């Protein structure tokens, strides 16, 4: 049974603090939506409102077609993995897992069977007789996860369910969760701080900051076309470089000057209607800023820079360098032999530039999708349907939303 989840103008205000502000978000039926954002931005509050543990100050929450604002958690049919685990300390693992099914009146045999299946999936088989206080942090977290997975709810809410697992187990659990989702397609809202989890697991990613939804899009779209400086800086590691630049147009061609060079904008890129000549913020992802000898032919721009720090990561190296007075980070191949204080040539493909309004931080450039990166996922379509439904899910600052989303071809 697939259920859509909808937040409609939802606010949550705690005294003087606005934890969630005007949230408009639809999680499609069967979708795996990843919710990311810095600490304290309102992710847990959003989940708690959806679970019914917190009542929205304003706005409506719908699960399926049903308005659930006044429905108690018990009858919402959601399962939640708590950030704090919230395991029953006086029950052993078996009873912790079985609690929900028993409360819903499942037969003893069915409970036993499901507990066994769930425990096997999570590698808890040998721990069923233990109490939570006798488990390690990672084991507790798996019990917390199991308590949700044992059920077949309309919606899964997971608040950083893998944060405490070691790297190997995390990869394994990530795959397991993805597989379970492929199989049962239960609508899921998944909070994480892990970039890899966000990019690999989510049908779409929702980025929040300061209680406001910034952008919701498929991972590749979000990565290639971040709606504003915040999203651009938040998604991607190492962080995108931001440097000041100037936009100028003459003879119908627009060019941008930054880091001591000037380049016309790549073909196919469109400036948004709000863009005008003058100050802009130029965004360059570290992997787009390459070591000249390692760069391909489409990297037509060359910048020279003084290496400051080299951080070898094994399969690559992050090089921080000073370029025209700005500090930029670039991804180098592993054994480039580059050392600090050395002068190096960096190469850049102008088509990979990101441009943002210098004041509002909102993107002023619609880049064409990268070759081969057409939306592979069914959810990409789901999102299109959504916007067709008239609900805008791209948020910038308020003025951005007043601007009609008209774009103009610039080449």
């Amino acid at each position, binding site marked *: 049974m697939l259920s859509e989840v909808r937040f409609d103008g939802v606010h949550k205000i705690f005294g003087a603090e606005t934890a969630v502000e005007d949230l408009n978000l639809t999680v499609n039926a069967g979708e795996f939506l990843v919710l990311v954002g810095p600490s304290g931005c309102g992710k847990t509050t959003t989940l708690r409102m959806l679970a019914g543990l917190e009542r929205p100050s304003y706005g409506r929450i719908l699960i399926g077609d049903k308005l659930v604002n006044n429905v108690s958690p018990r009858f919402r049919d959601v399962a939640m993995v708590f950030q704090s685990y919230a395991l029953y300390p006086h029950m052993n693992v078996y009873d912790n897992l079985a609690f929900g099914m028993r409360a819903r009146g499942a037969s003893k045999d069915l409970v036993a069977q499901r507990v066994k299946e769930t425990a096997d999936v999570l590698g808890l088989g040998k721990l069923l007789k233990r109490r939570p206080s006798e*488990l390690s942090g990672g084991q507790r977290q798996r019990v917390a996860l199991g308590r949700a997975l044992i059920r077949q709810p309309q919606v899964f809410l997971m608040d950083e369910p893998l944060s405490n697992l070691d790297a190997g187990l995390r990869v394994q659990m990530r795959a397991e969760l993805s597989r379970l989702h492929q199989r049962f397609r239960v609508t899921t809202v998944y909070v994480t701080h892990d970039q890899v989890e966000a990019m690999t697991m989510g049908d779409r990613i929702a980025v929040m900051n300061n209680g406001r939804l910034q952008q919701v899009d498929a991972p590749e779209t979000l990565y290639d076309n971040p709606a504003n400086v915040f999203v651009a800086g938040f998604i991607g590691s190492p962080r995108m470089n931001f440097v000041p630049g100037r936009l100028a147009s003459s003879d119908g061609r627009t060019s941008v000057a930054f880091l001591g060079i000037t380049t016309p904008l790549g073909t196919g890129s469109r400036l948004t209607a709000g863009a005008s000549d003058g100050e802009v913020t130029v965004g360059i992802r570290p992997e787009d800023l390459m070591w000249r000898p390692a760069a391909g032919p489409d990297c037509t721009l060359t910048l020279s820079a003084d290496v400051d720090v080299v951080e070898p990561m094994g399969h690559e190296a992050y090089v921080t360098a000073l370029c025209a007075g700005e500090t930029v980070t670039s991804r180098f191949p592993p054994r480039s032999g580059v050392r600090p204080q050395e002068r190096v040539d960096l190469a850049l493909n102008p088509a990979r530039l990101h441009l943002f309004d210098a004041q509002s931080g909102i993107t002023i450039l619609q880049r064409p999708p990268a070759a081969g990166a057409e939306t592979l996922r069914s959810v990409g379509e789901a999102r299109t349907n959504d916007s067709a439904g008239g609900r805008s899910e791209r948020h910038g600052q308020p003025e951005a939303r007043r601007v009609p989303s008209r774009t103009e071809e610039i080449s």
Partner: protein
Amino acid sequence: MSAVQARPLAGDKLIVVPYRKVSAAAMATNLVLILLGCFFLLPMLWMVFASIDSNPDWAIRIPSPTLANFADVLGRADALSSFRSSLILAGTTTVLTTLLALLSAYPLSRMHIPFKRPFMLVILFASGLPVSMLVVPVYQMYVYLGWLDSLYTTALFLAASSLPFAIWLMKNFIDAVPVELEHAAAIDGASTFRILREVVLPLTVPGTAVTAIYTFINAWGAFIIPFVLTYSPDNQPGPVEIYNFMGSHGLFKFGDLAVFSLLFSVPVIVLYLFMSRYFSGAFNFGGAVK
């Protein structure tokens, strides 16, 4: 304090530190503590010695041992009936207080109630009031209601006077149970009743036990209220009986008094030991939340 301190950490080996200067302040503190300790210990010592002495008096001295005092007390009907009275009085008080404290502490801990803080402060203040202040008006009230000389109505007043502190204590125990557990259970589909029965109650058992024991010990030792509110010999609880031993029976039987006091202290000592055990485990919600 220049020397390193010895710190026996739980699970750690005791690290023995060679030398530690004893400061004057520490010595003074210990002296005062020893003196205070004597005030409590000497009467107890007297009680123990006198109880097995064949010819006891006011003085503490090495007894010429006998069990005659025990035989004497255990043969006295008034002594046995006062035990019965004490049990009824303290038992009824404990059941009433604990039940009411649990029921009022839960909402006080979990719900948004207007003026909760001032209300809790009033409760705390009330728990500090000496009940003897109220004894005269309460006596008049009991006369008016015809409630005098019943152990159960007396327990009612004892319960009322021990309730404020019990509520305060109980609320703190319930506060210590993470509310997220109740949330998790609600999301798991449990009814309010099921949440209370299977999550909240099991986790408040230690706190409830402590509250009950505390109330019981207080009621067991209560003197002024039963002294004023009961009069027939059958309804005299232990502390009042001890007073009677000393006062009205003419002949002063030190041996009986000591034996009776000793026997009467046994339940309190046992419960104290039990409680100190429970206290250490009362907050053990290990593994519940991060």
